[in-house]
């Protein structure tokens, strides 16, 4: 049994949970943001026409794979020149859209635009077979899986620009002609949907635009309008004023922002209805009012980089938090001291300090990463610009301050659940919301926009 195992068992279970939570938090922060960004970029989008799976013999496709011409003579209903895009429409966004420009409507103008599935019979007009849809130029009808179409919009011919789109928010297909929406229908098609175009009479020629060139239709404006529609629906939900007040106040209490809290209480005195009682709205302030002044002091000290003084105050006021020098809390404080020494350029002192206080953590798997990153700071002339530069930012000080804050809260004998020390109601609300949105999206087969907090935060602005 190695020494390190012995040490970790001596720490009590409560401390183990809380301190380590913050350790994980500062490690994971940067990578999680990047992962989110990458997910949104990964989806493939149609860029050109698929020349392999097309009704060869009836059409010829240009070398750039962005136009198609009917080469046969239209004799019957099974010699349609159909062609799909090379990839299906991406689903992880609000709307997918593409356009065609009718270069030549040929003899009969039997052009179509729509969506089909992978196994579509490539000699039929989109919409004539099940699980496909098509807006036809010769009759202006919409076909959705039957030979008989329904009245939908105007006909279209040479020179017209026609677009087809999928609105994942409303689960609808919509079509446009020359920049105007023509109509929309419910989307009940299954499976990956391929943008599809078709030509069916002599000399018909169509050019397609998958977004490489600007669309005739103002897609951005349409998207903005759709978002606005959703936003207006959401705004109809009334939020009792006390709730926002309570959540903000509890945030300030939780993290020990005593000065702001005092200003806040003075300012809100006249506006909050006098009948506001914290408990009635469900917010328990007793737990978080505990040791407000101490927590504020410690936060200020840490934010100013005064780690030694912070240690001193903790030993004086809450010795139980720092008595185990191998706890996550002590570890984070020692690292921060090290970082502060590097920050002011006292590298020799930093090395000495590291040898005394940080070396014992080097072998412990949980602490190893952070220790390595800290030590790595010494290697750079301009550490702020290096991959470990994040340690020198304000955010790192905040993590340490938050840890100490949580630890002090945990010494409150009236604290009902230790996890309440970790985050205030506000963060919990945010997490709830994100998780709900993720769940909803997965119920929708991963379609639609990912939840982006920024969008919600910015959604109030118009124009």
């Amino acid at each position, binding site marked *: 049994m190695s020494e390190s195992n012995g040490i970790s068992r001596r720490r009590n279970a409560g401390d183990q949970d809380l301190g380590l939570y913050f350790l994980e938090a500062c490690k994971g922060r940067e990578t999680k943001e990047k992962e989110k960004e990458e997910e949104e970029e990964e989806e493939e989008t149609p860029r050109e026409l698929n020349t392999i799976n097309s009704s060869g013999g009836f059409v010829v496709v240009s070398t750039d794979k962005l136009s198609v011409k009917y080469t046969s003579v239209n004799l019957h209903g099974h010699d349609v020149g159909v062609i799909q895009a090379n990839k299906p429409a991406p689903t992880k966004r609000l709307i997918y859209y593409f356009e065609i420009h009718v270069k030549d409507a040929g003899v009969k103008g039997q052009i179509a635009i729509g969506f089909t599935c992978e196994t579509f019979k490539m000699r039929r007009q989109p919409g004539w077979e099940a699980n496909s849809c098509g807006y036809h130029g010769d009759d202006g009808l919409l076909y959705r899986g039957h030979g008989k179409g329904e009245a939908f919009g105007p006909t279209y011919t040479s020179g017209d620009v026609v677009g087809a789109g999928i609105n994942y928010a409303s689960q609808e297909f919509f079509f446009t002609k020359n920049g105007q929406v023509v109509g929309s229908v419910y989307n009940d098609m299954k499976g990956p949907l391929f943008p599809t175009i078709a030509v069916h009479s002599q000399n018909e020629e169509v050019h397609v635009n998958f977004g490489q060139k600007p669309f005739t239709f103002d897609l951005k404006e349409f998207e903005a309008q759709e978002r606005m529609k959703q936003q207006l629906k959401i705004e109809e*939900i009334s939020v009792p004023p006390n709730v926002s007040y309570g959540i903000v106040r509890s945030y300030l209490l939780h993290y020990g*922002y005593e000065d702001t809290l005092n200003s806040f209480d003075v300012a809100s005195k006249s506006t909050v209805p006098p009948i506001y009682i914290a408990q009635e709205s469900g917010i328990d302030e007793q737990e978080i009012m505990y040791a407000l002044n101490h927590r504020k002091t410690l*936060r200020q000290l840490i934010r100013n980089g005064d780690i030694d003084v912070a240690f001193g105050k903790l030993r004086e006021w809450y010795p139980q938090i720092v008595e185990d020098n191998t706890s996550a809390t002590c570890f984070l404080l020692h690292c921060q001291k090290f970082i502060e020494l590097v920050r002011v350029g006292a590298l020799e002192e930093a090395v000495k300090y590291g040898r005394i206080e940080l070396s014992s953590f080097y072998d412990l798997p949980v602490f190893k990463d952070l220790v390595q990153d800290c030590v790595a700071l010494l290697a750079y002339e301009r550490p702020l610009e290096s991959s470990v530069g994040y340690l020198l930012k304000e955010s790192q000080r*905040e993590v340490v301050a938050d840890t100490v804050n949580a630890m002090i809260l945990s010494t409150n004998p009236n604290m009902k659940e230790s996890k309440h020390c970790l985050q205030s109601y506000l963060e919990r609300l945010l997490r709830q919301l994100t998780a709900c949105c993720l769940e909803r999206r997965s119920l929708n087969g991963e379609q639609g926009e990912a939840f982006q907090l920024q969008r919600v935060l910015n959604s*109030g*602005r118009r124009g």
Partner: protein
Amino acid sequence: MDLDPRQYENVAINDNDIHSIVLSYLIHNCYKESVESFITSTGAKQPADYLEDMDKRKRIFHFALEGNALKAIELTEQLAKDILENNKDLQFDLLSLHFVELVCSRKCTEALEFAQTKLGPFGKEPKYMEKLEDFMALLAYKEPEKSPMFHLLSLEYRQQVADSLNRAILAHLNLPRYTAMERLIQQATVVRQCLSQEAGKDGPPPFSLKDFLKS
């Protein structure tokens, strides 16, 4: 809560977003000193346009809250003529506040005159008719506080009107009408509603703020 806790334990929350949410609330309510203190204590980024007419908004809000509707209207029109012109509902509500003030000060003749000249014209539209009737009913009671319409005299009602006015001014200044916090709660409610509808019996129950806060 019935959502799988593993789902949201892993959700990373950005401090900057949290700060934005808190600041949005403070700015919305014109708590200038609190905004400054918060920025100092947390190192949060100072939002670009937050001071935009905050002092003016604050004064207007407080006048409305006290029931001094005429002053609130005057200052609002100074800020921009079209805020009230484009918002008849708000205009009616503000004028009715003044009416209530007169009733409370027992200036009944003045109240009647005011109602006839200023509120009456609104009565042509059915939606204002009902409201107007409620207000006029106050005149029938020697002690309006004891009438069934007593809520029209309350601080809560004045707060409602003051809030609407504040939101209208914010919209005019191209700032959000609703605080980030409100939008979050609204979003959470809507999404939970959808989830319980779509998932049926197996899904989580509709969002209850109270339950959430108690959890």
